[in-house]
């Protein structure tokens, strides 16, 4: 085994580490399924899988956007507030104008999310406010706007038109509609990050912002793009959230950013930016949603979930940091020894 790793080129070694990372999540997932399957009687039922699939879908949609931001060595803490605000606006629009097509409402929601994301991007790239501070402030501001709009009232499911409520329940080709949307977003996101030059720039900026700039990448614009995408996908997430949980008040999706960031970090996206894959993030989201679902079935308090989300972030970051350090050391030794061609990037 070790001899095989020795024989690898640096790129292959990095790729192998990533495969191992994703394999680790799959193994954890298998363990979790076996554990809850044995403990909770209704865990391994078809309807429970549907539930998990629907919950995963919303997390995946928002997490793909968050991934883009974290790849550029930034963070977006405001996604929970954007989901809540857009979700409420979707529901309110449908209550007041029941005849608007659902697709149009979805587009409106995405557009609002996009606008809020651009605000984040401008604060970070132009006003040069560190992302953590900027999005902490917009988290509070967007939630405040949400509360002002709701005015303490809430919208319940029976105020909403039927065709909207049917969306989350519908199952084209035996698969929940939400899951189809999430698969589409994930595939599109992965394709962009693999082939689109502007999305490849996210990796370059996150790996080394100065080098990226010297290489002629317009880092500021790319960072704004990442935040805009994160906002737009959070807007789509808000639309999905409203269709899945149609009773909305100003606290809807409060703290959702934590679930999303947990999924992204467990999925192997480096919090220092520059590396990570959508496949890993999707697996991370599945793991988080499965654990959360199992906790609900075991009737454990909501707060155990929060506790485990937090613990998972710390554990994932620790493991990643240790593995990365080993990998970098190995690569450095290899380079010193074999004079391997430069440019073997850390971004797999």
């Amino acid at each position: 085994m070790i001899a095989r790793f020795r024989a690898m080129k640096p790129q292959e070694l990095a790729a192998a580490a990533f495969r191992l990372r994703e394999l680790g999540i799959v193994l954890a997932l298998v363990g979790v399924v076996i554990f809850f399957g044995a403990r909770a009687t209704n865990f391994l039922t078809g309807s429970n899988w549907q539930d998990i699939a629907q919950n995963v879908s919303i997390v995946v949609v928002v997490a793909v956007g968050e991934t883009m931001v974290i790849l550029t060595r930034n963070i977006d803490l405001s996604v929970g507030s954007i989901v809540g605000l857009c979700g409420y606006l979707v529901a309110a629009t449908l209550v007041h104008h029941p005849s608007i097509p659902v697709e149009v409402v979805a587009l409106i929601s995405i557009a609002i999310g996009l606008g809020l994301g651009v605000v984040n991007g401008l604060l970070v790239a132009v006003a040069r406010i560190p992302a953590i501070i900027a999005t902490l402030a917009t988290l509070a501001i967007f939630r405040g706007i949400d509360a002002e709009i709701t005015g303490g009232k809430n919208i319940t499911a029976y105020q909403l038109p039927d065709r909207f409520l049917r969306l989350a329940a519908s199952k084209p080709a035996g698969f929940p509609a939400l899951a189809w949307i999430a698969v589409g977003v994930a595939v599109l996101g992965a394709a962009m990050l693999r082939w689109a030059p502007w999305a490849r720039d996210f990796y370059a900026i996150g790996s080394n912002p100065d080098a990226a700039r010297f290489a002629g990448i317009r880092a500021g614009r790319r960072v704004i793009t990442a935040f805009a995408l994160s906002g737009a996908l959070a807007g789509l997430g808000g639309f999905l959230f409203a269709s899945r949980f149609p009773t909305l008040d100003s606290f809807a999706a409060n703290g959702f950013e934590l679930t999303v960031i947990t999924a992204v970090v467990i999925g192997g996206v480096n919090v220092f930016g520059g590396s990570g894959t959508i496949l890993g993030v999707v697996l991370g989201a599945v793991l988080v949603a499965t654990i959360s679902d199992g906790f609900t079935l075991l009737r454990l308090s909501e707060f155990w979930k929060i506790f485990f989300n937090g613990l998972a972030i710390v554990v994932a970051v620790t493991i990643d940091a240790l593995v990365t350090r080993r990998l970098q050391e190995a690569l450095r030794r290899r380079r010193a020894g074999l004079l391997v061609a430069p440019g073997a990037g850390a971004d797999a």
Partner: protein
Amino acid sequence: MSGARRIAGRVLVRWETLLVVAIVGVGIWSVTLSPFFLKRANLLDLVTPYVFIGLMAFGLTFVVITGEIDISVASILAASIVCFAQIFAAGVNVWPAAIACLGIATALGLANGLLVGVLNLPSLAVTLGTMAAYSGLAFVVLSGEGVATFPSSFTKFGGGYLAGNELPVALLVMLGFAIALGVLLHRTRFGRYLFAIGSNREAARLSGIPVTRVRVTVFALSGLMAGIAGLVYVGYFGSARADAAQGSLLDIVTAVVLGGVGIFGGTGSMPGVLLALILVAEVRNGMQLANLSGQLQNIVIGALLLAAIIAGNLIGSAQEGGFQPGKLRRRRKGVTSDKRAEAKVLVDSNP
């Protein structure tokens, strides 16, 4: 520009001067809202509800000057005071229970410090994780209900008054800590180490500063301050609950950043943070006088936080000679070899 004008300009754009001007300005606005604002009792009591926020902001100041961040402080407060409440409810005297509370808070901060300092993990990710973990822990320890049977000999430190019921004890506690921590930060070797590490960690390490130990200590100190803030919180509100101080992170970070502490580390002052806390308290108080809802207040505080950094950036570039707009350029977040910070430490390491 002539020398005299430059010095005058420097005093004018000094951050603390601006804060004082802002405090006076908001004070004038508050007077137009309510004639009772200028009463001595009201002025003295203005900051009392925000003392626990101030104590956490003082702790966070040390962390931010070192170039790190600790967003778990409010969760440490909640986790430590529910443990305190459980120990007290089990029949232990309130003072040993309070010491246990401080011990727990320090241990939680130390855990952050070990992860960041020894394992070299990014403090943002670590404390984001522990923020959730500690707050979950708080609810697990004391689910739902609160404990509110603390003796008045204890609660007076958070909610008691001296001098004819006008001088809040909590204000004295806060000023005491501001002075003690100000001396620690600005007049001791440990304090100098923080500025050095925040300016350039690698250079600090090479010049023989025990970087790892200092960074761990700073997080433990931040935890301890959260514990002390927790005791004041229990005293002020008379009860310990698992959702204590939830949502106060915005105010804490605003006080630190508005206080002129550079978010990339290496700069900042204790008087600045104290003034910023007074300003935040005054603004919140004024908005309450104007009957704004809590969420609307959060919008304003969030905007204040953003404005503080933008203003800081503008002043910074003005001092460095000529305003340069962002030009859609990312500034580096890394601490290890920031050339700007390196150059800056020579110029203004300690305002």
